[in-house]
């Protein structure tokens, strides 16, 4: 039986497809799914506890030891709540949207290597659900599909604030996908393969093999910022900004459908942390003091430690940073991150040929960056001209000039 190219990279299929390999694959899928679900409940508890510590509160402490069962209790409560569907909504799309949001978050985890390679009864098993040759592109594809859940939920609710949120979400996620993809290209160029297992293997051995250091920190930083925007987490959570849009796209949702959105958000946090670890932090690579006996457990332990560190980092950002204004968020994406990731891609490509090309391209990128900065400043001046400011509709308690100075720090109005 021919398996096709899709499974060609996985050593599990070396002896062809039969019932035992099929059983192993099914066990891997069920195990990953169960671990993901358990991790999500823990992640919700973790976020609430850490945030409450940062805000000098106690946080959930009633259900179970340290409030560990709080998420379970919330889930049961949400499950038995009344399920409302607004009259103005588009019923089919309204029901479809939560699933479109959960499924991509789960599928991404399938290509993440969460451990080393195990040999059981003569079979080599990669500790990851699947290792397709297009591995990392699957992550990009699924994060692109993740947009649908939010934007359709916003539209199908038949309500104003969710619609605004849906429009914001689609614009924001598409914008940041460009920077996300560009940094992934840098990693793929260094590895020479799209498979996540190859990306992890090429970083194994020592900490200076990690892409974080090999690629010079910039792609990793851009990727992390883009991931925060892609998962709509604070400080980029303008999609569900409570102060502007009530609850954003999920305002009209209740009961189990709301729970699914909640689940998808935290699932995304975990899977994207795992993707960051895979691409830039060596995946399951790490120090193993136990020799042969630790060769199975230690990679998994290192992977978990790194992912939990990133989950903590995301929670920390939520506790520490105020929400960004929407236009500034889009400026950051289009005017800073995309040019920076493109420029760094060129520099890395140059250094992969030889040093002279690298230095030459670095100088060219710096020159282009200066030109771009000049263009942005000219464009900014054009935008803040008096003609560019639309006249206000109706009456305002303060003059538009003063309002602009208070909100934007108007350069001309400052000296009055």
């Amino acid at each position, binding site marked *: *039986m*021919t398996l*096709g*190219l*899709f499974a*060609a*990279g996985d050593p599990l299929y070396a002896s062809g497809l039969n019932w035992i390999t099929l059983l192993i694959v099914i066990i891997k899928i069920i195990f990953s799914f169960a671990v993901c679900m358990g991790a999500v409940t823990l992640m919700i508890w973790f976020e609430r506890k850490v945030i409450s510590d940062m805000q000098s509160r106690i946080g959930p402490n009633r259900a179970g030891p340290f409030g560990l069962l709080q998420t379970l209790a919330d889930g049961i409560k949400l499950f038995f709540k009344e399920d409302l569907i607004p009259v103005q909504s*588009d019923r*089919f*799309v309204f029901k479809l949207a939560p699933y479109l949001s959960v499924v991509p978050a789960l599928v991404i985890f399938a290509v993440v290597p969460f451990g080393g390679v195990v040999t059981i009864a003569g079979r080599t098993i990669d500790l990851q659900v699947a290792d*397709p*040759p*297009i591995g990392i*592109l*699957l992550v*990009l*594809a699924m994060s*692109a*599909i993740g*947009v*649908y859940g939010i*934007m*359709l939920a916003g*539209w199908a609710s038949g309500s104003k604030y969710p*619609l605004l949120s*849906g*429009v914001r979400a*689609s*614009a924001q996620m*598409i914008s940041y*996908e460009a920077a996300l*993809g560009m940094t992934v290209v840098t990693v793929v160029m260094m590895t020479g*393969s*799209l*498979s996540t297992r190859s990306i992890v293997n090429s970083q194994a051995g020592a900490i200076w093999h990690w892409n974080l250091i090999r690629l010079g920190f910039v792609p990793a930083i851009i990727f992390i910022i883009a991931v925060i925007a892609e998962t709509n987490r604070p400080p980029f959570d303008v999609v569900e900004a409570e102060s502007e849009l009530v609850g954003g796209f999920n305002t009209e949702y209740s009961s189990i459908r709301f729970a699914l959105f909640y689940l998808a958000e935290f699932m995304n946090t975990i899977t994207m942390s795992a993707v960051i670890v895979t691409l830039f932090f060596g995946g399951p690579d790490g120090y193993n003091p136990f020799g042969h006996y630790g060769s199975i457990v230690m990679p998994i332990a290192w992977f978990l430690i790194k992912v939990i560190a990133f989950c903590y980092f995301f929670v920390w950002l939520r506790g520490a940073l105020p929400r960004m204004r929407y236009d500034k968020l889009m400026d950051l994406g289009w005017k800073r991150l995309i040019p920076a990731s493109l420029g760094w891609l060129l520099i890395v490509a140059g250094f992969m040929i030889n040093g002279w090309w690298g230095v030459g391209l670095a100088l060219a990128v710096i020159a282009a960056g200066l030109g771009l900065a000049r263009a942005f400043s000219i464009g900014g001046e054009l935008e803040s001209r008096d*003609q*560019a400011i*639309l*006249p*206000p*509709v*109706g*009456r*305002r*308690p*303060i*003059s538009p*000039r*003063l309002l602009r100075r208070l909100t934007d720090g108007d350069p001309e109005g400052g000296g009055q």
Partner: protein
Amino acid sequence: MITSLLATTAAIPDILVFAAGATMILVGALGVISSRNPVHAALSLVLTLFGIAVLFIEQQADFLAAVQVIVYAGAIVVLFLFVIMFLGVNRNEDIDQEPLAGQRSMGTVIVLFAIGAIIALGVEAHWVVGPHSVSGAPGGPYQNIGNLGRSVFTTYLFAFEATAALLVIAVVGAVVLARRSGAANAEQLEPDPDHKEVAP
């Protein structure tokens, strides 16, 4: 021919995958033209594009499948939906009236001609049922992307660069047009006569 295909057990998974992909494509395509709601039509288009991605995988073109999902389902249809959301959905639009006279009969003729041409090509040349790849045999796991990259940047470099230039021109043109109409609107708008500046 079909019975001989079915007789070989090796082909059964391929046939099942093809049937699933083809069903997705056809259901999606019918949904696109029969939905009265533009958003439903756009979602049906996503189903069609997914079906095409499945067929790409079945043809061992997995890179094209990923790009199909990322670019078409992930970006282009999202932009369609974006525009539909901004312009609003007019449910009462009369779709029985043709915007252009004779549009439907012309459409039928063109579709029949296109189907005839495809069948003729399939009979005459091996354009439809020919070899899987013209740039290299599907061998190792990463041959796919390597072959594609090599063809795009060597044999088909001119077409590739021309497409890139076309896209850049389109983007610049769109920005220029948007800027011009925006500036014209700003000049046309008069300040509100009732508005009074209030001293801070």
